[in-house]
């Protein structure tokens, strides 16, 4: 294993992309573990290119109006709502 395969900065960068805050301990632990795991994933380099012959079938249904959850049920697990809408934090 190479010690610097994944730097703490890279872990922080990916955590930012994935929108997961990490504390410093987590960053260090993940950096160490990711080095091992990614090195293992790199053995995929030995895999030959393989033709994929997926037999795909379209699954269609008529585009008809049908029942769905009512608004009250859809909102009942939300921490904050306003006037029948979900209420989230400011976007910027």
């Amino acid at each position, binding site marked *: 294993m190479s010690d610097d395969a994944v730097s703490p900065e890279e*872990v922080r960068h*990916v*955590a*930012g*992309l*994935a*929108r*997961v*805050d*990490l*504390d410093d301990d*987590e960053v260090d632990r*993940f950096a160490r*573990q*990711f080095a*091992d*795991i*990614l090195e*293992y*994933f*790199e*053995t*995929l*380099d*030995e*895999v*030959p*290119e*393989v*033709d*994929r012959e997926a037999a795909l079938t379209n*699954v269609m*249904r008529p585009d008809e109006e049908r029942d769905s*959850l009512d608004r009250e*049920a*859809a909102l*009942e*697990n*939300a*921490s*904050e709502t306003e006037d029948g809408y*979900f*209420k*989230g*934090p*400011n*976007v*910027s």
Partner: protein
Amino acid sequence: MSENIYITEERIEGADDGPLSGTTVAVKDNISTEGVRTTCGSKMLEEYVPPYDATVVSRLKEAGATIVGKANMDEFGMGTTNETSHFGSVDNPAAPGRVPGGSSGGSAAAVAAGEADVALGSDTGGSVRCPAAFCGVVGIKPTYGLVSRYGLVAYANSLEQIGPFGETVEDAAQLLDVIAGDDERDATTRELPLEEGETYADAATGDVDGLQIGVPTELLDGADEGVVETFWDAIAELEDRGAEYHEVSLPSVEHAVEAYYVIAMSEASSNLARFDGVRYGHSADAEGNWNETFARTREEGFGDEVKRRILLGTYALSAGYHDKYYKKAQDARAWVKRDFDEALSDADVLASPTMPVPPFELGESLDDPLQMYLADANTVPVNLADLPAISVPAGETDGLPVGLQLVGPAFGERRLIRAASALA
């Protein structure tokens, strides 16, 4: 209950009569039950109460089953030992002090402990078969597309299927009869491949006369000695009843574990993006804009293994790495499929130990994620190939349960049920 099998104990009564009336069922807690909380073993969904039933739950109710509880599980289905659950690990009723296997550990334990007659789990990389093997019960991973995933909280859609547990193959097959079949709410489902009048349960005849069993040598290499011995004893028992075996080679399985984890983590990073704390689930009491609040919510709500997989999945899909990891993993998946097709062209079923090791002691292996991932070597190739498989008790090594896995061709569940029913 001392084993911590259920996250929520709740009786949900089904219709007055039906093929499962009088039957009690444990349902893994990532399968939505209307009005009964469905946590996925996560703090993120600790208080979540779905407003609708999963299709499999509607079918259980119509069939007259009584659901007795929502079974404990690895958080979001991510784990091999049931120790990543926010609600604590499950003790293995068949091997106290040991893990029940993941991620459907609670479901398997419920059947092993007699807390439910049958149970539902979900299998993304072995999560029905692994706990079935560790708890000494039967578990079926159906062909991709046989059972609706509507209402199953998604982890890795292209790999996962809901599957049944039972004490016997016939019990598990009877539950499969109830849940299998197409569903207009899941476009990946197919019509039942059964002939008129056929069921899965009536295939459990135990007749293996003339059955050709292929044994992939790669899936025995490196397995625990006692597990391998128990496996061969079970094959000998099938031979006594008229089956024949030959060795086969599946060279691609050497890369199945890494391909599986790259694909599963990539899909997980996308699927779990929905947990933002706004529409449902844990919500951080944090200051700041959308991104800051969102990131805080996810830091608080997700456990270690879930974060690890989201981050690795995000990494594998990020610019510059997509071709190196994700595309190569898809190549490996196609290769695995081709290998299985070839091996099954001159064998009726393929047999191996379900798990290469007996159940771990609780707490034994939690700190080394890579070691944990490697334990799934025998089960993940089946999910990559979209095939059906069954784990059936094969015996014991040092008093610990060993499972035998049979793999069949797509929609060949009846063949697997017939073969496996010779053992349990």
